[in-house]
């Protein structure tokens, strides 16, 4: 097993358009029949849970459930759901609550435990796995399974797998709204088509973000800490983006809610800490503009992930990662993640490092064992029993 190439995520980001073009329809076919119409119609709330990228996907997809399907959605990390969430679910009525566990590998133990416990708490809950491999422990503990398998491109911090999970979640939200008569099936199909058409936006955004990512990585390689901020679905994107920086380059990074940054991290040194402001057109955009001004006044180095038409944050930014094409806010996490994947790759190269510290032999050895067990690098060291 060789160290991962520093730029491995660039190939992943480049392939996102293809993933959308080729995988949305097959995944949608599974989603449509994952529950019966009666079960879909009975739902009143959805809990979504996962670890790492999968947790970030739950955060990023929350708005799709609440705004499109108009159904209450509670995203939680698997540990929180397992020990501090599932015990308090209202289980008065059968089939009105869906618990969705997300695991790219299908082997995430805490997610499997969460689904298992949900069923122990009440048989009235419906459990579902969204996974790239539904034969693993997560799928084994779920009533229903949505396979979001994408062609393997080798080891990398998850970018395509994250997108596949997001696609599964968004298509599930569209289906729930469709069967619950929130909109007609022609509108549901139009949304599905809109998702597929984002493939072109992904391709164009990838191309437009390559140079900014390269230039920004050169300029910011001295940074000891990088923060990503966003609101609503972009908070999920911020969490995911920060994870890619850490996994790939090893640089300390965090994702934060826009407003929370104003209350906490704005007071941190150094003044020139790079801040990625993820601000798609949508509900939280106005606040992103305010905070971009504050960040500029503080001396922060601003990296804007915005639509190419955007003016307010763009004029304040040191680097701009333009999204080429319109994207509704609920779908924005599929596209606004591209900037971080590219930036993280070039930063890793600038720092002479390898993703997941795979330049270190002991890490490589542990990782080989993990892959043999069909688990992801982020699950390394988790040896607790199911």
């Amino acid at each position, binding site marked *: 097993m060789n160290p991962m190439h520093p730029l491995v995520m660039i190939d992943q980001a480049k392939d996102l358009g293809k993933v959308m073009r080729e995988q949305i329809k097959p995944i949608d076919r599974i989603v*449509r*029949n994952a529950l*019966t*119409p009666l079960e879909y*119609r009975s739902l009143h709330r959805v809990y979504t849970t996962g670890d790492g990228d999968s947790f970030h996907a739950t955060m990023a997809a929350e708005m799709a459930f609440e705004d499109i399907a108009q159904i209450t959605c509670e995203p939680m990390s698997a540990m929180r759901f397992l020990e501090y969430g599932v015990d308090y679910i209202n289980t008065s009525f059968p089939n009105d609550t869906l618990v969705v566990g997300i695991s790219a590998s299908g082997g995430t133990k805490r997610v499997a435990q969460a689904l298992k416990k949900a069923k122990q708490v009440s048989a009235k809950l419906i459990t579902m796995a969204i996974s790239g491999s539904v034969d693993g422990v997560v799928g084994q503990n779920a009533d229903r399974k949505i396979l979001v398998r994408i062609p393997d491109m080798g080891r990398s911090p998850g970018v395509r797998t994250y997108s596949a999970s997001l696609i599964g979640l968004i298509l599930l939200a569209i289906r729930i709204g469709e069967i619950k008569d929130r909109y*007609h*099936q*022609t509108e549901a199909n139009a949304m599905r088509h809109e998702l597929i058409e984002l493939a072109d936006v992904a391709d164009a955004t990838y191309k437009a973000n390559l140079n900014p990512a390269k230039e920004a990585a050169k300029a910011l390689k001295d940074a000891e800490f990088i923060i990503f901020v966003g609101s609503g679905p972009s908070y999920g994107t911020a969490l995911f983006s920060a994870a890619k920086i850490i996994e790939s380059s090893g640089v300390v990074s965090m994702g934060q809610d826009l407003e929370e940054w104003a209350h906490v991290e704005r007071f941190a040194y150094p003044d020139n800490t790079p801040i990625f402001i993820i601000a798609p057109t949508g509900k939280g955009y106005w606040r992103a503009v305010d905070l971009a001004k504050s960040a500029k006044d503080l001396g922060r180095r601003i990296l804007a992930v915005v639509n190419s038409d955007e003016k307010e944050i763009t004029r304040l930014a040191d680097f701009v990662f333009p999204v080429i094409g319109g994207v509704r806010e609920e779908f924005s996490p599929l596209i606004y993640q591209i900037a971080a994947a590219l930036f993280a790759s070039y930063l890793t190269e600038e720092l002479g490092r390898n993703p997941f510290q795979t330049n270190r032999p002991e890490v490589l050895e542990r990782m080989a064992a993990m892959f043999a067990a069909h688990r992801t690098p982020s699950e390394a060291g988790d040896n607790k029993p199911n």
Partner: protein
Amino acid sequence: MLKVINFQSSAREELVNLKDEIEAFVGDSKIDAGLCFVYCPHTTGGLVVNSYLDPNTPKDILHEIDRLIPTRLDFFHTFDTPSDAAGHVKSSLVGVSAVFVIDDGKLMLGHSQGILFAEFDGPRDRMIFAKIIPG
């Protein structure tokens, strides 16, 4: 001679009267005698020839069809929606075509008869074909 009538239905279920468009098509054709074949190329819509003068008549028709085939959640066709599945059955029962006599350059319709497109799962973009066969 073919006429394509494009329109959008505006409700989940409704009857849309296309009599005026089809009569105008027949008039413009200058065909004195023959048949006008009207065809609906949809699987959740159909054609009904009936009264449209009292708006409660279409309501009764739709209500009774809905009573016969209610939108249930246990249809076998689950790829789309329950109302889509019910729409297929309703469309099959009412049919998708009608033939009218043309004489003296006019459609031979009863005075209260309309040519009604039956929407069973709208609103959707719809089309109807009308073809005149002289003779």
